[in-house]
């Protein structure tokens, strides 16, 4: 039994490698993790991610060398169940959730994860964003039903202190559906959440007003909720931010978010500026276009790969570097290559930039953890 493993260098795209390794059952060895850095080896948040993977799997073998620069990962089988995890506050919960989203549908028992830590920070997609964009995407692939849920539970925690709590539950599936997401449709409404914790509740209203001022030119159907939390529910650090999501007629979501810099780091930003910038980011996202927004490109591509041996298609905006690397990794782990057709905008069309039509044939993946009785 020689299931040949794969070897990588550097800590970038760490999650992709571990997640794909878990799904494909291939061993992976990552060398030279920050080996030239003053502070070499795995960071705490990466260790925390490994621990999370260990919690949802059974029989996973992890070996890390003394300095933490070499990681050997032999995946086990996905177990799921009810788990609780304290996420390291160096990265927000979105970092961990992105990994879980890819794995959750292929567990032995439905996953019900309670994650504690930072719910919103400027680097990673926040829980609110993933809730509005990733969950509808899962539904496209047939992962839907009562069990699918993701929400900020009791409290929101901003960087750097954290203290928020998120629950994520997902039903299990044996196989995924092939999809043909080629026609994004037109944007019919824009929704958003402006949140503020441990600051004046007026901040959220100021964000809403400024954001509306930018996008009102396009569409009148805009509603931005304000979410102000107080006391124990407000986590450990102050902050505010905005998440915007544009929904198309076909039920696809494009989103953007912006959050204030963590307390004591970086320049302070006025809520008006934040609102405006976030709205512009949304416009940028709309300009990129496609059926899946740039954050979830890799998720969509993964589920296309893991589909039955049928042709799946999805129209994306320009591929982000993360997605490009993800495509390479998919080729390494599953030997799947995507057919990419660039769709430059037509002359008289005013629908943003160039789009890419991604086509692939699934590997015929089936959930081997699920029990049949």
């Amino acid at each position, binding site marked *: 039994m020689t299931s040949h493993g794969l070897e990588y260098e*550097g800590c970038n795209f760490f999650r992709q490698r571990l997640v794909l390794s878990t799904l494909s059952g291939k061993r992976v060895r990552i060398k030279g993790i920050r080996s030239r850095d003053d502070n070499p080896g795995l960071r705490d948040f990466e260790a925390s991610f490994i621990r999370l993977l260990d919690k949802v799997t059974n029989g996973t073998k992890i070996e890390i060398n003394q300095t933490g620069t070499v990681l050997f990962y032999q995946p086990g089988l996905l177990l799921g169940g009810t788990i609780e995890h304290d996420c390291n506050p160096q990265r927000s919960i979105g970092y961990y959730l992105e990994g879980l989203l890819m794995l959750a549908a292929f567990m032995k028992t439905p996953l019900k994860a309670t994650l504690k830590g930072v719910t919103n920070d400027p680097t990673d997609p926040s829980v609110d964003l993933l809730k509005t964009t990733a969950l509808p995407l899962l539904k496209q692939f047939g992962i839907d039903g009562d069990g699918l849920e993701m929400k900020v539970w009791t409290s929101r925690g901003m960087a750097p202190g954290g203290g928020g709590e998120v629950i994520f539950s997902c039903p299990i599936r044996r196989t995924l559906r092939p999809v043909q997401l080629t026609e994004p449709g037109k944007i019919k409404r824009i929704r958003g959440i402006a949140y503020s914790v441990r600051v004046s509740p007026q901040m959220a209203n100021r964000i809403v007003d400024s954001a509306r001022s930018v996008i009102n030119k396009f569409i009148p159907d805009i509603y931005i909720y304000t979410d102000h939390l107080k006391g124990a529910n407000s986590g450990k650090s102050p902050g505010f931010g905005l998440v915007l999501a544009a929904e198309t007629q076909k039920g696809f979501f494009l989103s953007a978010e912006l959050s204030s810099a963590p307390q004591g780091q970086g320049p302070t930003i006025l809520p008006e500026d934040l609102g405006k910038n976030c709205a512009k980011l949304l416009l940028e996202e709309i300009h990129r276009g496609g059926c899946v927004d740039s954050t979830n490109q890799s998720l969509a591509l993964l589920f296309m790969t893991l589909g039955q041996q049928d042709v799946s298609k999805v129209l994306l905006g320009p591929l982000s570097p993360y997605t490009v690397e993800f495509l390479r990794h998919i080729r390494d782990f599953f030997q799947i290559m995507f057919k990419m057709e660039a769709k430059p905008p037509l002359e008289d069309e005013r629908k943003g930039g160039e789009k890419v039509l991604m086509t692939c044939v699934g590997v015929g993946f089936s959930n081997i953890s699920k029990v*049949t009785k």
Partner: protein
Amino acid sequence: MDGKVKEQKKEQKKHQQKNSGPKSERKKSRKLDDAAVEENEHKKNPKAFAVQSAVRMAKSFHRTQDLKTKKHHIPHVDRSPLDPPPIVVVVVGPPKVGKTTLIRCLIKNFTRQKLGDIRGPVTIVSGKKRRLTFIECNNDINTMIDLAKVADLVLMLIDASFGFEMETFEFLNICQVHGFPRIMGVLTHLDSFKNNKQLRTAKKVLKHRFWTEVYQGAKLFYLSGMVYGEYQAQEVKNLGRFISVIKFRPLAWQTSHPYVFADRMEDLTDPETLRLDQKCDRTVSLYGYLRGTYLKKHTQVHIPGVGDFSVADVGFLPDPCPLPDTKRKRTLNEKERLLYAPMSGVGGVVYDKDAVYIDLPRGHVDREQESRPTTELVRSLIDTHATLDAKMASSKVSLFRGSATITDTDVEGDQQLEDGEDEEGGDDEEGGDDGEDGDDGEDGEGNSDMDEAEASTEQPGKLTEPQRVQTGKRLKMSVDEGEPKVSETLAFADSEDDLELSKEDLSEGESAAEESDEEDSESEQIETKAAGSAFCSDEEWTDDEPDVESTMKSEGMEIPPPKTTEKDLKKAKALEIKGSDQAYETDGALRWKDDLQQKASEVFLKHQQAAPNLRKHVYGTGKVSECQDLEAELGGLFRVSRPEKSKTNLADAADCSRFHPDSLHNWDLEEMLHSIADCFVTGKWEEWQDAATLLKQDENLYGDFEDLETGEVHNGDDKDQETQPEDVKVDDETQKKNKRLEKKRRLKERFDAEYDDGDATYFDDLKEEMQIQAELNRTEFESMDDATRVQYEGFRPGMYVRLEIAALPCEFVTNFDPHYPVILGGLGSSEGNVGYLQLRLKKHRWYHRILKNRDPLIVSLGWRRFQAMPLYHIEDHNGRHRMLKYTPQHMHCGASIWGPITPQGTGFLAVQSVSETKANFRIAATGVVLELDKSVTLVKKLKLIGYPYKIYKNTSFIKGMFNTVLEVAKFEGASVRTVSGVRGQIKKALSTPAGAYRATFEDRLLMSDIVFLRTWYPVAVPQLYNPVTSLLLPVGQKENWSGMRTVGQLKHDLGLHYKPKPDSVYKPVVRAPRHFNRLNIPRQLQKALPFKSKPKQDQGKGKTPRDLIRPTVVREPHERKVAALLDALSTVHSYQSKKARGAQRLKHKDFLQQREKQEGEKVKRQKEAKKKLYRMMGQQENKSQRSSLKGASQDG
């Protein structure tokens, strides 16, 4: 008179149908009624059709619906390939039943060829759309298992004179477990029946037995007898017809895994390493049609009987046994009836990665070719006329096709421009033989056939035989000289295709050179270089399409005139322009205007190349160059480690999925905002979606109408007519036509939506969805060429592929026997790993013994056959998996093994040994995989035993169960039980003796009681995974694989016997006679008891008291006399009375007889009297009736 009557009788009057009158009317009305009966039934007899019971009606409705839905199968996406691989026909049967004869007859039937010795699979073309691969299955259970997994159709041969044999049933069972392929029975040896009736009954019995095993109505063929050692032609023909029309159901395992049933094997190991070490691991290439599903590169395969391997290289080859080109005709001609069986040494053309072997019969070899030296090298030497120096001097290099060539003299500085266009004619021909291999072979080409190039300018398009040979040599030469040139061309290359260094070209050139050396003059095998063999190898994968094309062309001997692509033209022109620019620099300032069109086309072409650019960006040379160069040595001791900015940034950058582009667009600009306006519902819609257009279309659809209320007349067409310009052009007409078609389509859609989809069920929708998906699957990559297509899809089923496997054990090659099938079964994504499998298992009911826990079993699961040690268990009601010592007799049980991860729902079968051939049924168990995991939770029952040593009422002190206080502490609160069933609980540990504890019970214990504590102890599943390597065994011994032995076998082999403990031995039961004490009821109680329950006879009588004993009487003599007399008298009296009683009885009997007689007579008399009376009465009645009738008639 008489004669007339007779004549009349002869010609009887015919029946004349009444056409009028009441009778005919009645008939007519009845006829009408009959016609209307069906409609009027409800009216006529409404009660018969009324709903009698709503419940029953609902039930019957339910039933019909249930039956209807039962017929449905879950619809599947049809993934069957357009060009299906040959159907695997496995011929199975016990020895001496006629398997080989049948295959030979069928092959002869289809191809008109006779095969002598059949070894391995034989592929033939059987029809316009069907190919067959025949394989014979011998009696080895390993072969049977392997072939059952790949079979599409099984021809099951049965010796009718003998009946079914155990192997037949075994094979059927194997088939059932691994998905049921089509099975056709064939009865042979039917000529051995002398009696026709016997034959018929035998047929019938066998048929019915076969039907119960396969399915009711399964096809069973009869081959009645042999003619000259062959089956009768007509019967074979019929069988062949059945085979060629049979339809197949996709089998779950086969359709989800790629597999290759190898029909050819070549050892590629380097002869040098082989010489050094005979037993080194071999590199082997295996060939066969790909079946099942898409095969990806670098997949893992399992070769049953050998082991798991990862495929080093995959490539597809031209089909050696292709289907005829689709033409409208009924039958195949002789040329198209192909036969391919490399293992038997048959098959015309054998393709390989870089060569084609043609096997020609002796008579066909061309004489002209024979006269020439066959070695290419020699030939090329003969054809060379100029020396190397001369050639060097006259050689030219052309950087681009059709561009100016650079000669030796050019390099010295003399810029001499030649007209590219003029040269085109000559280069056309060059392209004809070496295509676009220009990157590396350009200068070689130049120096070797300078003279030919000149010649060809005079006679374009003509190429003689020697010249062709030259090209081969040219290629070879280009190998060593080409490399430096590559870099040179790189610098000028403007398209990314040229940037890819095509190593493949080089290596192919080399291999071609090697081949030409290998060529053998005596043999009739003529090696030609792969002409257009579209072999795609590993290196080419990274290349672009055009490159692949070029390699294909590079060795093309008979390739049609080169296609000068647009790109080439563009390049040529661009260079031309450049050249002219240089030459006439001073020329007018408006020069830029001249090539405006060219520039535009350039831009356009660049746009066209955007797609491959994206692909290259993602999948192209992804490797970042190593930073080794930066590490400079310092004094030979230290290395300076300079962190390279760019690289570390990439490798160690923050792992974030957000897309932050380098520069955001400026969203303050109105222009930018305008660019995404159409993304919103408020923006402009596409024409076919726009509300206004849709409305207009609707209007057009429904045309003119008149509003009745207002009296206004709407004319649908006027707008069109108005908008149409007066001068009607052809263009407009087509537009109109299109419009009309569109309109029609829309109407139809609407109609369908209204009427067809109204009653469409969920099932129909699902089926339609699947069909759409299947259509998409088929069409998506259809237009691509195979080399590109395999990158996206993987290799399609139906392709003839070559799989190279490195590091196969040398025994595979040295002990290769073509009679044993070599199957390469592709494994799914995590099927290469091992873990614990939980199975549902049932001992086969024909297996004669139950299976013991931990006894090794050989399991056939997925592609594999392996030995494992199962632990049997059963699930308790609370979900606990309790270990069993043996499998239950007739029940399912669970089994856990350590083995390869295989998807749930896969069936398996188990045998205890593959080596023995016994009369008994060999399949020990069958079952299915339920669950996969990396750990198991099996428990076995463990009873801890203790003894009370002190008893106080319900509390007892127990010792002997544990050894330490700690152990007791772990079990505090646990429930215990005595043998007699008294329950209790562990309370607390005692300090002395160690391990003793206090426990309370529901009753007082006895000192003789034994206390149990029932616990569950986890057991580990033994990690034995031992693949059956039967293919590695020497020829002739492949059936003798033996793995780990069971304990029983070991004991048997070593002559060991189990010595039971003396305590466990059964001894004869000796029972002491039981003794019961008297029941003593107190007097008071006795008194109170009712009489019924009072003790009665229980008390002994005891002694009779004296006063009650009566004295004996002694008679006097007189008294004695009197008594004797009385005695005698009474005797006499009793005799007499007895006699009298007898007489009386007789008398009475007489009397009774008498009386009976009298009675009889009396009855007789009475009867007669009655008779008389009744007769009288009857007569009288008759009379009166008659008289009354008379009276009536008189009245009437």
